[in-house]
């Protein structure tokens, strides 16, 4: 059980390449924080700094109020789950679970108790005497988590733990990680580039881009009011449509809307644009159908509006041919106003 505080944390390689450019983050006890961003955004570096696997260029890392920025990984009371599991190949599953405990001189009885307990939680009891190479990917993942659990650490650090699994197993393990974390109430930092994984797992999301934090908030906050253009484009699938204000000007009803000053980009979520006129006040955009992608229960509709391609998520499979004229509707309240220059929202929700 622990709180983690990152204060102006920086990392540079060779003096001029800044991987992490000053990150501040407070993690409450028992919280699951997901760091999400495109590759190269510094999220893994950040996690590895917390783990003690990367040196800290500047700033502080506090775990339970103690500055650990210079401490060895083993002294930080954390446990880490690696992307490729990093199980010791020559040890049995039991050996893998025990290794960390043995190194810190845990008494034999205590080791046995914790290993049995972790094996029960993760249902890997029957595999304890097997070697990692005899296990499937999902089982290895469980062992890797087991190795973290037996340590009973202050915090779990997950470095893209699911990205080596196939899609189906990934969803299953995602749910299990969430349940496990709720049950153990261990403070966790979780790194992923998969925004769906991030949305479903997180208590709070930290969206990162090129070494900086773009937004910190609950998944709902981040989805409903993205703080920056980057977040707007990164979270949500298909991504939010970002339309220059000139392209919106022709829309019926747009002139009546009061936009905050300096707004020059309008964001509209794919599921807030509809093709049937809704009740009440609405914007109306004229467009031409470019492509209809059926994906089962719903379809993605690509529509060209004043030279911009917008993507809509529409229920079912509407009968539309490519090139057809179409009207799109959206309530004025669905608009997210941004400024191109600063990349930030122009209203003050976030």
């Amino acid at each position, binding site marked *: 059980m622990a709180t983690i505080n990152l204060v102006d944390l920086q990392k540079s390689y060779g003096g001029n390449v800044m991987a992490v450019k000053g990150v501040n983050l407070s993690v409450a006890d028992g919280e699951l924080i997901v760091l999400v961003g495109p590759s190269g955004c510094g999220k893994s570096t950040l996690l590895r700094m917390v783990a003690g*696997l990367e040196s800290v260029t500047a700033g502080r890392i506090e775990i339970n109020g103690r500055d650990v920025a210079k401490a060895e*990984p*083993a002294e930080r009371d954390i446990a*880490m789950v690696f992307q*490729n599991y990093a199980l*010791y*190949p*020559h040890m049995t599953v039991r050996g893998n679970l025990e*290794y960390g405990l043995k190194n810190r001189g845990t008494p034999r009885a205590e080791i046995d108790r914790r290993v049995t307990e972790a094996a029960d939680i993760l249902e890997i009891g029957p595999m304890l005497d097997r070697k990692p190479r005899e296990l499937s990917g999902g089982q290895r993942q469980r062992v890797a988590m087991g*190795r973290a659990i037996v340590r009973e650490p202050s915090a779990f650090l997950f470095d893209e733990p699911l990205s080596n699994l196939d899609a189906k197993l990934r969803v299953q393990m995602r749910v299990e990680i969430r349940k496990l974390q709720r049950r153990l109430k261990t403070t966790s930092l979780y790194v992923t580039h998969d925004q769906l994984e991030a949305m479903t797992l997180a208590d709070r999301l930290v969206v990162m881009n090129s070494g900086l934090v773009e937004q910190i908030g609950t998944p709902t906050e981040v989805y409903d009011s993205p703080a920056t253009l980057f977040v707007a484009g990164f979270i949500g699938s298909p991504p939010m449509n970002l339309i220059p204000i000139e392209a919106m000007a022709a829309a019926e009803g747009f002139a009546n809307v009061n936009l905050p000053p300096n707004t020059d980009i309008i964001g509209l979520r794919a599921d807030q644009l509809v093709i049937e006129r809704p009740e009440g006040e609405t914007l109306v955009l004229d467009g031409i159908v470019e492509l209809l992608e059926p994906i089962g229960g719903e379809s993605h509709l690509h529509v060209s509006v004043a030279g911009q391609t917008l993507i809509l998520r529409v229920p079912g499979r509407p009968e539309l041919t490519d090139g057809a004229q179409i009207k799109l509707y959206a309530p004025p309240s669905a608009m997210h106003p941004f400024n191109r220059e600063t990349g930030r929202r122009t209203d003050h929700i976030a």
Partner: protein
Amino acid sequence: MVENRPLLNILTHLVLIVGVVIVAFPVYLAFIASTHGADAFARGLAPMLPGPHMIENYHRMLTSGLSSAGAPPVWLMLINSTIMALTIAIGKIAISIISAYAIVYFKFPFRLLAFWMIFITLMLPVEVRIIPTFKVVADLGMLNSYAGLTIPLIASATATFLFRQFFLTIPDELMEAARVDGAGPLKFFRDILLPLSRTNIAALFVILFIYGWVQYLWPLLVTTDSRYYTIVMGIKRLAASADADPYWNLVMAAVMLAMLPPVLVIIFMQRLFVKGLVETEK
């Protein structure tokens, strides 16, 4: 690539059999020769079937040797060779695995330079640097000693390089996981790297043992006292008797005895050896 044609099978077997015969025939001849009396070769015709003097020849070579050729009994030379080969193999492995560990896992100034310095010695085998090496060994008073026989041959770029390449294939996460698990550098080396290198060590041991066993030039130079003769150079002395025909039957008995230990090492370490050469699974 798996084809199953009878004619092709026969042909491939034929080629293999011919190859085996070519390799094995001289060994067979040597064995036959070692079982005959001294007069069997005087007629100029080598016998093809075993003779009656096998036990006698081997017994004589093992216990008393050929004093006329200035060689000690074979058992002493066998022991010397074993000591030399074992020391070289174990020494080379110990030193090179440690230096490879340092080069791969530690960041220190001139790390790359250190690696290349080791690597470049590959181009300077004993034969090339034999006179300066001899001078150094002589000045250190190591002539006619096991230290003189082994130490100059222990430093090994090949083994260092092999271990380096192997360590590079071990994912960094393993080291990081060990660090999080509270294992320091020595613990990581002992608990993780050494067990993982087991098959590599075995394969290298076989190769290096034989390398040490067949050393000829170096022992010939640094030993003048027959107490330190090794078997391979000893055979040369047996064959070069000054004023008479060599006792080929006895020389061949020594040859057969000299071949035995490397063969035994291979037989006993074969499984690990092959695994070390072909294993890719980490």
